[in-house]
C-alpha cells in the first residue's frame, strides 16, 4: 500500500464517517425548530434565525472533515 492509496482511503473515510453525526444533529435541530414553529408560529422569525446560526455551527464539523480530506488529496505533506 502506497501513501497515495492510504491518503485516498483516509479522505473517503473522513468525509463518509465525519458527515454521519452532523447529519443526525442537523436533523434533530430542524425537528425541534419545526415543532417550535408549529406550536408558536409568531416566533418563526427569531426561531429560524437562531436555527440558521445553529445549523452553521453543526455544519462546521462536517466542513472540518472536508478540509482534512482536501488536504489529504491535494496538499498531502507525506506523498511528495
Amino acid at each position, binding site marked *: 500500500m502506497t501513501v497515495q492509496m492510504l491518503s485516498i482511503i483516509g479522505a473517503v473515510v473522513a468525509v463518509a464517517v465525519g458527515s454521519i453525526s452532523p447529519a443526525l444533529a442537523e436533523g434533530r435541530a430542524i425537528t425541534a425548530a419545526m415543532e417550535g414553529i408549529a406550536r408558536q408560529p409568531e416566533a418563526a*422569525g*427569531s426561531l429560524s*434565525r437562531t436555527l*440558521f*446560526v445553529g*445549523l*452553521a455551527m453543526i*455544519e*462546521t464539523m462536517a*466542513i*472540518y472533515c*472536508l*478540509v482534512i480530506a*482536501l488536504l489529504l*488529496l*491535494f*496538499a498531502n505533506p507525506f506523498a511528495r
Partner: protein
Amino acid sequence: MNRSPLAITILFHIGIVPISRTVVTTWGLMAALTGGCWIATRSFRLDAGGWQAMIETVVIAIEEQIGELLNRDATPFLPLLGTLFIFLVVANLSGIVPGVTAPTAAVETPAALAAIVFLSVHFYGVRIQGLGPYLKGYLRPNPVMLPFNILSELTRSFSLAMRLFGNIMSGELVVAIILAMAGLLVPIPFMAFGILVGLVQAYIFSVLAAVYIGGGIGVIEK
C-alpha cells in the same frame, strides 16, 4: 480532476506582487458593485420611484435584521455588515456566469473576509465598551477561562472562513464531477442547488459576523 481546489492561478505580476485570477474577479465585482450603487443612488428623490424603493427595502431589511440580532441601534454596524452581505451574495452567485469562477471558491477570499470580521470584533468592542471593560470580558466567567476564550476567538474565525470556502468550493466541485461523469443537462439541478447554498452561506456569514461583533460589544453572551 487534475486541478486542485487549493491551487492558485496566477494571471500576471505587478512588480513582484503576483495577481491571481481570484483577485481580478474580486476587482471586477467591486467595480460592478461600486458603479451600480453610484448610478442607482445618483438620482434619489424624496418621492421614491420603483428602483429607489427596491434599494431602500433591501437596506432597511438588512438594518432591521442587524437591529433584532444585536438588540440595539444598528447604524454603526450597517456599513460593514451590509457591504459584507451584498458582496457575498454577488460573489457567491458570480460562479453561475460562464467563464467566471466565484472568488469565494478559493481559500484566500473567505480567509481575508474572516480576518476583517476578526479585526472588526476587537475594533467595535474597544470603541463601544472601552479598552479596560473589553479586555476584562476575556476573564469572564473566571480567569481560568482566558486561554479558552482566546482559542475560541481564533478557531471561530478559522471556521468562518472554512465554512464559506468549503460550501462554495464543494458546490463547484460536485458540478465538475457530475459533468465529467454524466453529460450536458444533468448538472443543472446541482447548479440550482448551488444558487440556494450561495445565498444561505452569504446570510450565515453575515449573521455570524453580527453575532461575533455582538459578543465583542457585550450585548450577546459568548
